[in-house]
């Protein structure tokens, strides 16, 4: 009995070491979205391409979508953009843009110059749709399913892993 007690500090040390080691590989920025499993927020915002055109949830027709939050002031978005263009060419998942707290002419020019992977863009000048989505910085990527439910969130530029995961959830081959 006494001998077992001598091993208690060693066991505690190993347990502590395990948790600290685990902590090394955790991403402190990875935050689960509070919106997973919830419907995409209600919105009524103009389109980026055409200020006259008002977009609403009705424009999310019954198919899964990748919703990409971007802005011209965001350097990672510029880095991400060619990947989005390439992914759009795969024709597996339609991409919708939310142009977040941006200026319309700059954003339109961006799309003309760098290519347009988007089915359409929601112009969120005040960032209110972003606020409802729980966006805390661009770029962010959301998977919205055919029923309009948010199923997946990836903070930061889209990665191969996030894309594969989205295709898996959306059940697209």
């Amino acid at each position, binding site marked *: 009995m006494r001998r077992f007690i001598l091993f208690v500090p060693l066991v505690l040390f190993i347990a502590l070491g395990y948790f600290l080691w685990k902590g090394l590989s955790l991403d*402190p*920025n990875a*935050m*689960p*979205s*509070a*919106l997973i499993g919830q419907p995409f927020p209600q919105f009524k915002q103009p389109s980026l391409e055409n200020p006259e055109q008002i977009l609403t949830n009705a424009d999310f027709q019954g198919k899964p979508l990748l919703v990409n939050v971007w802005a011209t002031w965001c350097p990672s978005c510029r880095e991400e953009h060619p990947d989005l263009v390439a992914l759009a060419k795969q024709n597996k998942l339609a991409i919708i843009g939310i142009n977040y*707290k941006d200026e319309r002419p700059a954003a339109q020019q961006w799309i003309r110059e760098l290519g347009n992977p988007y089915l359409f863009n929601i112009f969120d000048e005040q*960032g209110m749709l972003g*606020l*409802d*989505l*729980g*966006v*805390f*910085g661009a770029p962010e990527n959301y998977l919205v399913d055919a029923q309009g439910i948010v199923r997946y969130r990836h903070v930061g530029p889209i990665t191969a892993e996030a894309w594969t995961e989205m295709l898996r959830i959306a059940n697209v081959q």
Partner: protein
Amino acid sequence: MFNNLNLGFKLALLLCIGLLSSPVFATIDVYQFNSDQDRMRFQTLTTELRCPKCQNQNLADSNAPIAQDLRTKIHSMLTEKRSDQEIIDYMIARYGDFVLYQPRMDTKTYILWFGPAALLIIGVGVVFWISRKNTEQATTTPIEVINLDAQQQQQLAELLNDKGNSAP
């Protein structure tokens, strides 16, 4: 009383007063409140809610654009006479429990709320157990070890008696 001071000195004095007052105005004048109570609520809410972007700052301290947006949102909700709980629920609905510096009490956070107290009780228990074991050893073992035979007992009795007799 300032009549006998020269103009240059007066101007310098005015400048100094201006320097003292400007930073105070800069922080207060951003938002207008209906009442001092609202202002207090705004300050409490922005210090209790965490900035989602910078993570180690509250909304009041952070200069991140998202923190500015959320401060504006809190201000507009206060102007709309929403309760503190409504504002906090609004934030949780968007950013999750993460935004709370003071975690809510539910099954996931019991360990946070009761863990320290449980550890304290366990610690006190262990200390109590160890000290009781030590005193037990100190009081029981010596008596068990020393076994006096008849001769030794007689000697002991004599010594005690002797001491008792010679005492003043």
